[in-house]
């Protein structure tokens, strides 16, 4: 197990290296010289030349990349053009709210998705099934900015249960997490149902029933556990999508976070920040995928990674 995790961590390294090359080239392939962008509208040619030299932009690309990589390894992602602060610090400021939001959304999506999916499968073709399936269809099709605004109107403005653009406590997290998690919940519910329907006719389920176990126990303890493998895979993928989807939800609910920060950086051509966020996001993705692989082990003892 440890050997497996170490091996997988080792495999993450080349992935990140490739990402770092792409990210590095990004600022060199897009039109507009970083030095000109940093100095702004009225810079003189001499100033631009001086700054190009200071930044090492007049050196060969390979040398520049080497310097960049050496910086990244030391945790130095450069400085934001816009604010002048270290990029690592800027990212660190905004990661916790995004992580909270994503975890909150994931928790809501996983819990409600699996539960509803199981209900639908258990009552196949009945009223519960129809309701879950049609609601999930709505959930998948509804754009998150619209759902967010509806929730704001209903629970923020009319009922006043939750703050609209509120502070730091858990109440401020509820509406954004529901908005962000809704789509993933719908996907997970449909998948759980389909997967369970595959498993339920199996002989081990019949055996479990035959030995007199309660229906609920059969469903959740025996069938669901076997049905969850594809669901967990999709959850991993959904987690990545949630990190991306946070952009819109963070804007609608005026939350601080990496998504909004990335958009602002793109708009102001803050290349060091864009590079930093892409690299950071790639690392997070890689770690999430690793966790998914590890989760398989817990779910199904037949799966082993060691030889």
């Amino acid at each position, binding site marked *: 197990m440890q050997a497996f995790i170490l091996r997988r961590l080792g495999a993450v390294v080349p992935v990140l290296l490739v990402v770092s090359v792409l990210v590095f080239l990004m600022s060199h392939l897009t039109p507009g010289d970083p030095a000109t962008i940093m100095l702004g*509208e009225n810079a003189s040619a001499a100033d631009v030349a001086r700054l190009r030299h200071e930044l090492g932009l007049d050196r060969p690309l390979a040398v520049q990349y080497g310097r960049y990589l050496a910086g990244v390894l030391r945790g130095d992602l450069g*400085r934001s053009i816009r*604010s*002048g602060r270290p990029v690592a610090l800027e990212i660190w*400021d905004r990661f916790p709210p995004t992580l909270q939001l994503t975890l909150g959304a994931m928790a809501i999506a996983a819990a409600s998705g699996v539960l509803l999916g199981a209900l639908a499968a258990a009552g196949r073709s009945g009223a519960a099934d129809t309701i879950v399936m049609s609601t999930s269809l709505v959930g998948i099709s509804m754009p998150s900015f619209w759902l967010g*605004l509806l929730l704001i109107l209903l629970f*923020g403005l009319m009922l006043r249960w939750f*703050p*609209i653009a509120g502070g730091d406590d858990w109440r401020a997290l509820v509406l954004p997490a529901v908005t962000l998690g809704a789509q993933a919940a719908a996907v997970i519910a449909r998948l759980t149902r389909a997967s369970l329907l595959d498993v339920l006719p199996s002989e081990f389920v019949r055996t479990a029933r035959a030995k007199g176990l309660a229906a609920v126990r059969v469903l959740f303890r025996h069938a669901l556990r076997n049905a969850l493998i594809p669901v967990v895979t999709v959850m991993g993928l959904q987690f990545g999508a949630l990190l991306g989807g946070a952009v819109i939800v963070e*804007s609608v609910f005026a939350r601080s976070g990496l998504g909004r920060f990335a958009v602002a950086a793109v708009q102001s051509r803050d290349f060091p920040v864009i590079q930093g966020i892409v690299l950071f996001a790639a690392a997070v993705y890689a770690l999430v995928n690793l966790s998914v692989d590890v989760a398989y082990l817990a779910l199904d003892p037949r799966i082993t990674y060691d030889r």
Partner: protein
Amino acid sequence: MRRNFALCITLLVAAAGWGTVLYAQESRVGGTWTIVSTEEPDTLDPQKTGAAVAAAIFQFVGEPLLAHDFSNRVVPGLADSWTISSDGLVWTFKLKAGAVFHNGTPITAQAVKASIERAIAPETKSPVAKAQLGPVKAVDAVDARTLRLTLSEPFAPLINNLGDPRLSPIDVRAAESAGSGFGRAPVSDGPYVVKEWVSGHHVTLARNPAFTWGPPYMHHGPAYIDQIIYRFIPDSATQVAAFESGEVSQLGLPPHDVARLQATKKYQIFRFLRKGVGEFLEFNVTKEPFSDIRLRRAMNYAINKDVLVKVVLEGLGEPAYGPLPPSIWGYWPGIVDYAPHYDPAKAKQLFAEAGFTPGPDGTLQKAGRPLAFTLYTTPADTGVRTAQLVQANLRGFGVRMDIQTYEFGTILEKFKKGDQQAGFMGYTYNEPDIMYIWFDSANIGSGLNFSHYADPKLDALIDAARHATNLTKRAAIYVDLQKYVVDKALWVPLWTNYNYIALQPWIKDAKIHPDGYVFLGDAYLTKR
């Protein structure tokens, strides 16, 4: 138990009632006022920021040498009095006694000198503050309270610029020791101190109890409101919802919410004309077809601005006729009659004079080539909707206009290079010197002269206006300038929108300043 509880309630009620009476009589101090902002500042180092929202926040954090009162006259700020030499080259300021920076350091002429020198220094890479100081070449502290600026040539905009919050003095020693952290917690001299900045969320300003050197239109002494919070909310629908729920106290109203919120009669709503032309169509005179001035003039008669104001702005604005709006000093009211108005017959005649006649399908053409061009605009709602209306409007004359949208950064690059045939732009500025930025040939290529029009006569007029320290003379030059730009038909000015600001009802004595912001220096809250 029950009796105790009742007693408690009685006492509480009594205390509350008593408290209210006391407070109305003796103290206006306290409370938190939350202002919505769509944008977050880049930095709050006033000399390093280019962002409008940073300037807005610095209205509270800084106190510049001069100020503008409610009739837009220049009045004392941190400087008690000032003199300008007759050649306009030497400006001498007497600082108010007793002023201190947020950290308690006394503000001497030496400290202000250090601050101005930092703004000018090339290492600071100041995007705005340096340009505002223009040809200031030397700064001297004559004595502890006397500051002297020496200019290399007269520079009329300086008197207005010295009232800009971004030229508020900062404590340079504090800036040096804080490094890049200074932009998150600047040390300046205004009625509020930056207390906290949570990235992507809000900036909290705390009342500066030492502040007694405000402008003459403010009461003597520190501000009343205890805390001012700038809350960053990017989505306008969320902004309005948060305002209606009472979570935020002040916001710039999106146009389509104005009528609805006015109808509730619950809020204080102020209106002012934007300080700048909201949207104008700018021709690139180095490219076909608008290298021909007759076509540019024809376009000025062909476009119906009243329709744009009615549809795009839902009536909440005015048609624009010249390069300056009525809300900027130097605007010449005569421009409305001087400039072209919608006149289809005149437009057709000018198109014909330029050699364009209707072809078989109604499209205007000359030597078999149709009159067609591509207009570049940013994807902003108002820009795109204006473009679509202008497109339909021109189609009626047989002119084909294609619309191409680019994100703001890209469009600036393209306009600078002169890739466009024509494009939409808009601006906000505090000074008629904006004419230098849009029209001087020095700003072709690197600056914002997107018409790429170079004309020594126009440059000379702009130069004269910048040198005229005499206001009457300066105003007269701007009249000529406005006429000249209209004569050359470099733009079709389209519209200028009203800005609306809504305030919660529990604020008293908030005033709208002609510079386009809410002055809270005298304001106090009745609900805290």
